[in-house]
């Protein structure tokens, strides 16, 4: 290992250790966290940031590595959240076997839906994945056999969950679990990016025809990337269920996928730490903007300003449009440009290569 590899790895490990001891310290970040870092409120918010960060990491694996613009990623997050929720409520399984079964089920669903949707590429792929996620969302809202709780959502049945993961007093355990989920997600994504199959998927993103001409199987590689992304997403879903002690239909819907897309683009497509930063930043912004919307300062503004400012999604949507228009590389791309390190691919190139239509058009005689 060269020194240039050890330093970032060491810095990353140190950062994780710092995050791990945060519940034992009293650090106040007024305006960002609702209280000092040892309080349950602050830990809950930080843990939620981590859940979304790992979801964003999994989406970045799809979009950044595989060039797959999926609009159905929330389906696998929902599989994790609802799968575990239903198993804990309806069966006598304890947490770990139920967890394993949930991941297995989510994996099977990801294989089946991925195998069908990868028959098309580019924009049609986006639409097909959207349709699958929509079917899942409709299913959850319909509440078949009272399994999913319909619009009300499903609350966590706590009989079979270890006491250490239940209740406000144990928020710090949930926080550590969420931190572990991010670390696992990061390591798996890193491993995928460096593996043979990851290289084939990335090469297929750049030029599928050439990969095929080399005798490799881009379809299989993309399917593996898709399924691993789905599994990490369902892991985040499981963590979401435990953290929020329940889940709502929103966690399967297209809205969530779009939210994750916003996180990844905000952070910078194709950058692992960009995805994490995007996920954390988005969650914090969403939380803060909702508080801002209800504040007296906004209420007292004239309607022209008051109406848009009281809608967090309006501000985030507008911010997203501005980032896409003017900051194509997102946060990671801008940081790379500022520090003068051209090593990482910029978000623009990654996005361009996700567009297979263009490639076909150019290949057409």
């Amino acid at each position, binding site marked *: 290992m060269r020194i240039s590899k050890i330093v970032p790895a060491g810095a990353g490990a140190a950062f994780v250790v710092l995050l791990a001891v945060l519940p034992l310290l009293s650090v106040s970040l007024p305006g960002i966290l609702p209280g000092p870092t040892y309080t349950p409120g602050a830990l809950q918010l930080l843990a939620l940031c981590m859940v979304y960060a790992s979801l964003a990491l999994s989406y970045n694996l799809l979009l950044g590595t595989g060039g797959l613009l999926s609009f159905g990623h929330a389906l696998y997050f929902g599989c994790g959240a609802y799968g575990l929720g239903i198993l804990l409520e309806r069966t006598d399984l304890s947490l770990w076997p139920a967890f394993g079964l949930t991941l297995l089920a989510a994996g099977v669903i990801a294989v089946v839906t991925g195998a069908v949707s990868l028959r098309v590429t580019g924009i049609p792929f986006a639409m097909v994945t959207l349709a699958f996620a929509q079917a899942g969302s409709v299913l959850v809202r319909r509440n078949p056999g009272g399994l999913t709780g319909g619009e009300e959502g499903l609350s966590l049945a706590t009989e079979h969950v270890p006491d250490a993961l239940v209740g406000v007093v144990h928020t710090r355990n949930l926080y550590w679990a969420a931190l572990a989920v991010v670390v696992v997600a990061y390591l798996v994504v890193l491993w995928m990016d460096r593996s043979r199959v990851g290289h084939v998927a990335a090469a297929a993103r750049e030029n599928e025809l050439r990969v095929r001409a080399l005798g490799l199987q881009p379809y299989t590689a993309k399917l593996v990337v898709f399924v691993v992304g789905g599994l990490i997403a369902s892991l985040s879903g499981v963590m979401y269920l435990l953290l929020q002690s329940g889940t709502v239909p929103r966690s399967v819907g*297209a809205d969530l996928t779009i939210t994750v897309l916003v996180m990844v683009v905000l952070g910078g497509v194709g950058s692992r730490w960009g995805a994490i930063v995007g996920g954390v930043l988005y969650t914090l912004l969403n939380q803060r903007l909702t508080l801002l919307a209800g504040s007296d300062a906004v209420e007292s503004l004239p309607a022209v300003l008051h109406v848009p400012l009281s809608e967090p999604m309006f501000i985030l949507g507008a911010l997203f449009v501005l980032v896409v228009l003017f900051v194509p590389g997102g946060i990671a791309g801008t940081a790379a440009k500022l520090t003068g390190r051209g090593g990482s691919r910029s978000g623009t190139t990654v996005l361009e290569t996700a567009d297979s239509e263009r490639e076909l058009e150019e290949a057409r005689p």
Partner: protein
Amino acid sequence: MSTIVLLLATGLGLGALYFLVASGLSLIYGLMHVLNFAHGAFLTLGALLGYAAALRLDATSWPGFIASILVGALVGAGVATLTELLLIRPLYERHIEQVLVTVGLSLASVALFEGIWGTDPTFIRGPAWLDETTGILGARVPNDRFVIIGVAALVLLAIVVFLRRTRYGMIIRAGVENRAMVTALGIDVRRSFTLVFAIGGAAAGLGGVLAAHYFGYVSPSLGGSLLIFAFIVTVIGGLGSLTGAAVASVLVALLQQFANYYAGGTGDFVIVLALAGVLLVRPSGLMGKAA
């Protein structure tokens, strides 16, 4: 028998709505390769402002209804044109980013509509005749279905005539076929991009007003729910194919209605299954170009 007629009429009405949304999506995709997520927002805005116009005149009168249709179409066309000029054009040839911009726009606009009009659906009224029913073969078919089907058929006819008989229509068709060649012939295809967006936006705005009558309410989430089915329709029909969109709209809506009635409300799943089936057999859709 009467049930079947009723399901047919309702299915055709719903198919007409799908077509009004999907025609624009398909044209835009065919020419520009942009998947327009903001299309639902055009529809919602058309419905909301169209109904506001109808209220000004008197929602239960025919002039009010016609005004709402015209306002809906104009609003849809106007917003779509602005979107193309301000957001899509600066990202020329960067298709995925164009999609992302429309995603952002739809997020922001739905939130804005909710801020202005509230999240709850507003129940609307139209001319009394629309709420009455006509007996066909023993079935009581609501009259608004006929209006919706008629308007959609007119829109289809108008678009077909426009595409086949006018110079701009010819440029658009040629652009769908081979954009590089059209540009090489010295024709500015980009002007037709704006045109296609305006046409699609008008159809969506019109569809919004009619959808409000079909469902009986307007709400900021009206467009989003129709948009997903319109996506499915465009994929099944073949992206970029107008006839494909028309045929698939009717097929999808009928399938949905019949499955909902005879198979215990499974319409939405049957459609997704149909989509998966079509993709397995013909990945380019029913009438799409062979990939």
